[in-house]
């Protein structure tokens, strides 16, 4: 078990180092985020619809689409020089490869979210600070869910010709439960509703995470071994 985590950590660290040096995906995601937030804010009629009604949906659309810009990166970088073969040749377990990739993707998406959230609070004038704790929890849970599935999907998508198009096609239906839950919980948090109201959605989110992280770990080997 310790070996598995150590190997996953080594792989994640390598990925993060590579992305940090090239920064292309990260910068694209940030630019995309800023644009989306600005355009949404600019495009609505502030007298007709209040920010609080739209805000949760916009926040989560921004998070998920910015995330998708980076998800393919994890396996795309293993295609140059057939580096993936190098990983598969080594004694590390396939689960370690999967967890390492998920971890690297979480760092990527988490960084984008950490920058997007304050921007969002700024543009939409939404009271984020009073509910920051629960909000961060929800963001973490939902992000784990869609990054876990997204990483698995990208391991298949990068082997097709239109990888950037294939990933959203594969992933979007799987985003419905976690993103819907996240939006609903976020909306109630912003509206100052008691946390007890979000119980059902929270259970759905946690259930999704448990089932799909387990399923992706189980099935990853089938996508990567010939």
């Amino acid at each position, binding site marked *: 078990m310790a070996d598995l985590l150590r190997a996953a950590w080594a792989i994640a660290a390598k990925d993060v180092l590579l992305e940090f040096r090239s920064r292309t995906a990260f910068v694209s995601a940030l630019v995309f985020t800023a644009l989306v937030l600005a355009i949404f804010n600019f495009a609505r009629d502030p007298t007709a619809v209040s920010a609080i009604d739209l805000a949760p949906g916009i926040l989560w659309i921004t998070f998920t689409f910015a995330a998708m810009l980076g998800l393919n990166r994890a396996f795309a970088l293993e295609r140059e020089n057939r580096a993936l073969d190098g990983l598969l040749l080594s004694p590390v377990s396939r689960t370690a490869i999967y967890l390492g990739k998920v971890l690297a993707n979480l760092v990527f998406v988490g960084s984008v979210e950490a920058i997007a959230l304050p921007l969002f609070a700024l543009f939409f004038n939404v009271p984020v600070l009073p509910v920051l704790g629960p909000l961060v929890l929800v963001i973490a849970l939902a992000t784990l869910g869609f990054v876990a599935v997204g990483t698995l999907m990208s391991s298949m998508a990068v082997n097709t010709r239109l990888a950037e198009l*294939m990933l959203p*096609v594969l992933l979007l*239906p*799987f985003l419905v439960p976690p993103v*819907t839950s996240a939006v609903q919980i976020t909306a109630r948090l912003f509206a100052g509703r008691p946390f007890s109201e979000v119980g059902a959605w929270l259970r759905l989110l946690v259930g999704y995470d448990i*089932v799909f992280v387990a*399923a992706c770990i189980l*099935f990853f080997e089938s996508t990567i071994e010939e």
Partner: protein
Amino acid sequence: MTPIESAERALRRSAVWILVSLLLLAGVYVRALVFTPAEVVQGLAQKIFYIHAPSAWVAFLAFGLVGLMSIVYLLLKDPRADLFAASSAEVGMVFMTEVLVTGPIWGKTIWGTWWTWDARLTLSLFLWFVILAYLVLRSAVHEPEQRARYSAVLGILGALLVPFIHVSVYLFRTLHPLPVVLKPGRPTLPGSMLTTLGFSFLVFTLFFAALLWHRYALARLTDARAHADAERADA
């Protein structure tokens, strides 16, 4: 009998059954339109229900078969399981599209809107997207073994997704009730309507099974021919 001959025979036999079920389907429609009373409030539009509900049942059945055969493939690595799953996905796609077309038509005539986020319709929409993803993935991967593996993983994950989407929609609905007057979905039906519906379900299932059998036979035939060609090229 060679694989090619066996597939060709299956193709012919299943075609016969398709014809039979089409005739039965016509019979059901005649019964539905002529011999079954119209529903008081919805009128003629309600008759779409006799197509819509069985199509939905069959589409979900197809989806379930995809999930099941995906598991079989990953366990046994038998390419026939993959061909069966792919055939079920294609036929299921047709029926699911039909659900998504007849649903709004029905909705427009009785509620005045083309689309509502009704629980079952929403679930059908998302499953449609999953089947679409399955078919798109298959078309993008050319190596047969890789394609089978990828499809199987997607098929199983898609099947796992169904209960979660169902719960999502259910939660969304109970907390955001639909602004509609009529209760959509399965109303309580008097005897003759129930019988027509029952017949419709049976005939649609038969129709689905025949189409699936036919499509699977076609897949087996294509595969057997490709195999024979490859062997001839070798020799």
